[in-house]
């Protein structure tokens, strides 16, 4: 395979970013949008071609018998500091990066297309498309990274483009605050990531993924049993690298930025904060999985963080009012599912089933969660509100959105034959095989997922039927256009339909043939015991949601009132933001920074100001010497010279 296509895959979005970013002002919004979409379409075709070549061509570069190989298309030295410390930029093709080459351009293209309708008439339309291209470039660069440092560079770039897009409506204070929050929290996590990279490469002497992962035992021995605070240095390195993943993938306790990130435009939420960027943490762990396998403790850490986050996010999602927040917490919960899938994967259990399941879930989740977000965008577009309280009974007005949203809900709840069933079932099987506790725990979370998704579905599309005609008339006074909620234009519904179709069929992909942790083929067999349990739980949860929310009634409110404190706590996300504010503001700002600032202002500045003051005063006291009378100076000089001469004479003679 020559290197033109891999280079083009990265170069086209970058070029589009520069073109739209620099020349966008001179273009009409429509031209900019179409150009961005066409650029992404080209990338879509090229990436599909690359991924399909990798999976199906049977070229000995890519596959050895039945084992898939890691193939480096190119690996260019970018910065060379010393012999060992070399930073390269390259393009790595292996099962997971090829899979991401399908996921990212697909979602990105759908979002580009959808935004043509959704963002129509917004100020800064060209800028929006420029940022979307920048994001696509960074995300593609991240997944094809050949070494951990390249990954880190693009990791920061996706963070930056996420920051720019969350703060797209920069006139809204809430959007500005949300973008800053996302940037700061993920940057804080990236500090851990960087330290982890440095520790890992300090001992192993390489950044290269292929070198690291092809011979994990060598990595293990290069650490030579170094320990730090009771854990081995390797565990520390892996946990610290995982910290970066926790920040990007919104795992507890660094999840607080993701719900606020919903301040950005909805298509951005679909692309960045649901389908692609937030799974970067999962991707990172998957990329370094052979190393994680060396230290069970680090995998245990991944599992525990994932399991706690999944449960927490599912509880909170049950009580949110803003539909995008529900989806945000659902995203957190589903990503935590993938983390758990990786955490429980062991080579001795079904040849690392959890790894495959996690990647499978990443794939299917990207599709159906993008679908749900784009559907939510269509709803918000129609109703002009983010809250489900402003919706209800919309199934009559927006049939396309209704059906596609329902498909998304069924997929995420794990109802066969929709895609979520297959991937989630694999994760649950892996959990049960690892330990029954994780299995039961994650099944419970899966049930809650079904419940809150269908709660949302029924509240939006059934429940009460607000008088939209009445409201449309009211709006007519305010906004000058009176219309009932209706389906969006084709640029918005077409992506919904395509993604819905994908969500129906992509569960049937024999994923084990393509993506496994060592490249061996693996045949998925559904374990009907576990599958039966998860289907039963999901169906019960859906029926419960249907019973509670299909028609307007007081039961949900009564239930919430009966356990007010719990509902309130969950609604306020268990006060995590308040805890963070307490820690940062009360302890760090008031307790540490203010005394330091006081010390700086009064002691250090005081010393300097004191010196300056003394000099100043002394100068003005003796400035009379400079009288302008030249002969006075000479007198003083003469006296000085004589005294000096006298002193010298006394001392020498």
């Amino acid at each position, binding site marked *: 395979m020559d290197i033109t296509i891999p280079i083009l895959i990265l170069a086209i979005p970058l070029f589009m970013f520069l073109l739209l970013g620099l020349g966008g002002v001179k273009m009409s919004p429509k031209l900019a949008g179409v150009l961005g979409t066409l650029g992404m379409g080209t990338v879509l075709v090229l990436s599909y071609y690359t991924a399909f070549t990798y999976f199906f061509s049977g070229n000995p570069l890519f596959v050895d018998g039945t084992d898939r190989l890691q193939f480096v298309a190119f690996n260019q030295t970018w910065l060379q500091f010393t012999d060992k410390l070399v930073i390269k930029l390259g393009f790595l093709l292996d099962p997971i990066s090829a899979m991401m080459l399908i996921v990212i351009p697909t979602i990105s293209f759908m979002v580009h297309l959808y935004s043509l309708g959704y963002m129509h008439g917004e100020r800064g339309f060209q800028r929006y498309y420029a940022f979307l291209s920048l994001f696509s470039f960074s995300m593609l660069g991240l997944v094809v990274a050949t070494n951990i440092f390249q990954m880190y560079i693009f990791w920061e770039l996706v963070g930056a483009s996420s920051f720019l897009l969350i703060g797209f409506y920069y006139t809204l204070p809430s959007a500005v605050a949300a973008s800053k929050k996302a940037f700061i929290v993920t940057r804080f996590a990236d500090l851990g990531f960087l330290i982890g990279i440095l520790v890992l490469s300090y001992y192993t002497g390489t950044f290269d993924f292929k070198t690291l992962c092809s011979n994990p035992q060598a990595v293990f021995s290069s650490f030579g049993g170094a320990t730090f605070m009771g854990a081995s240095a390797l565990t520390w390195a892996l946990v610290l690298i995982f910290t970066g993943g926790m920040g990007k993938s919104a795992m507890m306790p660094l999840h607080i930025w993701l719900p606020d990130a919903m301040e950005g435009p909805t298509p951005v939420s679909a692309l960045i904060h649901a389908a692609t960027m937030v799974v970067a943490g999962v991707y990172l762990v998957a990329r370094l999985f052979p190393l994680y396998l060396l230290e069970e403790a680090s995998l245990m850490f991944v599992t525990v963080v994932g399991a706690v986050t999944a449960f927490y996010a599912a509880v909170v999602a049950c009580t949110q009012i803003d539909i995008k927040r529900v989806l945000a917490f659902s995203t957190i919960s589903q990503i935590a599912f993938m983390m758990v899938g990786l955490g429980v994967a062991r080579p001795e259990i079904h040849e690392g089933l959890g790894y495959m399941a996690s990647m499978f879930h990443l794939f299917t989740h990207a599709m159906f969660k993008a679908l749900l977000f784009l559907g939510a965008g269509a709803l918000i577009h129609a109703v002009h509100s983010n809250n489900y309280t402003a919706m209800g009974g919309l199934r009559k007005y927006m049939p396309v959105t209704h059906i596609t949203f329902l498909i998304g809900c069924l997929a995420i709840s794990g109802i066969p034959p929709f895609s979520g069933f297959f991937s989630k079932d694999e994760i649950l099987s892996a959990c049960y095989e690892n330990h029954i506790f994780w299995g039961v725990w994650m099944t419970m979370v899966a049930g809650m997922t079904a419940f809150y998704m269908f709660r949302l579905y029924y509240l939006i599309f059934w429940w009460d039927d607000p008088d939209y005609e009445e409201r449309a008339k009211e709006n007519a006074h305010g906004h000058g256009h009176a219309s009932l909620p209706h389906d969006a234009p084709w640029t918005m519904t077409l992506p919904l339909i395509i993604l819905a179709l994908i969500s129906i069929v992509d569960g049937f992909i024999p994923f084990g043939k393509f993506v496994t942790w060592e490249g061996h083929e693996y045949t998925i067999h559904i374990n009907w015991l576990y599958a039966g349990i998860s289907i039963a739980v999901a169906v019960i949860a859906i029926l419960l949601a249907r019973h509670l929310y299909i028609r307007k009634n007081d039961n949900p409110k009564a239930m919430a009132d009966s356990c007010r404190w719990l509902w309130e706590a969950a609604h306020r996300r268990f006060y995590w933001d308040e805890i963070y504010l307490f820690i940062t503001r009360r302890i760090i700002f008031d307790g540490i920074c203010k005394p330091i600032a006081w010390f700086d202002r009064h002691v250090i500045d005081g010393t300097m100001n004191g010196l300056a003051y003394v000099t100043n005063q002394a100068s003005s006291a003796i400035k009379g010497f*400079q*009288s302008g009378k030249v002969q006075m100076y000479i007198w003083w000089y003469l006296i000085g010279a004589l005294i000096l001469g006298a002193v010298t004479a006394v001392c020498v003679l």
Partner: protein
Amino acid sequence: MEFTPVYYLIPSLVMFCCGVYGFLTRRNMIAMLISIELMLNAVDINFVVFNRYLFPGSMEGMMFTLFAIGIAAAETALAIAIIINLYRVAKNIDVHDITQMKF
């Protein structure tokens, strides 16, 4: 009669003291300049004398004197130029009246 260095040094000392006295007391800038020249010439005499009596074989003192004369000429030209310019501006070259350059 034997000429010792003292015969040369005493006139040179007198010249130097006259220069210092004139420099401190005269108010006319031209006179001050002349006083400076007087001091310089006293120093030149000393150079020559010490060279002649202490290091008869070498020429450094003589050369240095020539050098100092050259410098003195340049310095005088510069000082005269300054004084003339000052006179054009202030119509006055009395050093007691020119006291603008102060704090």
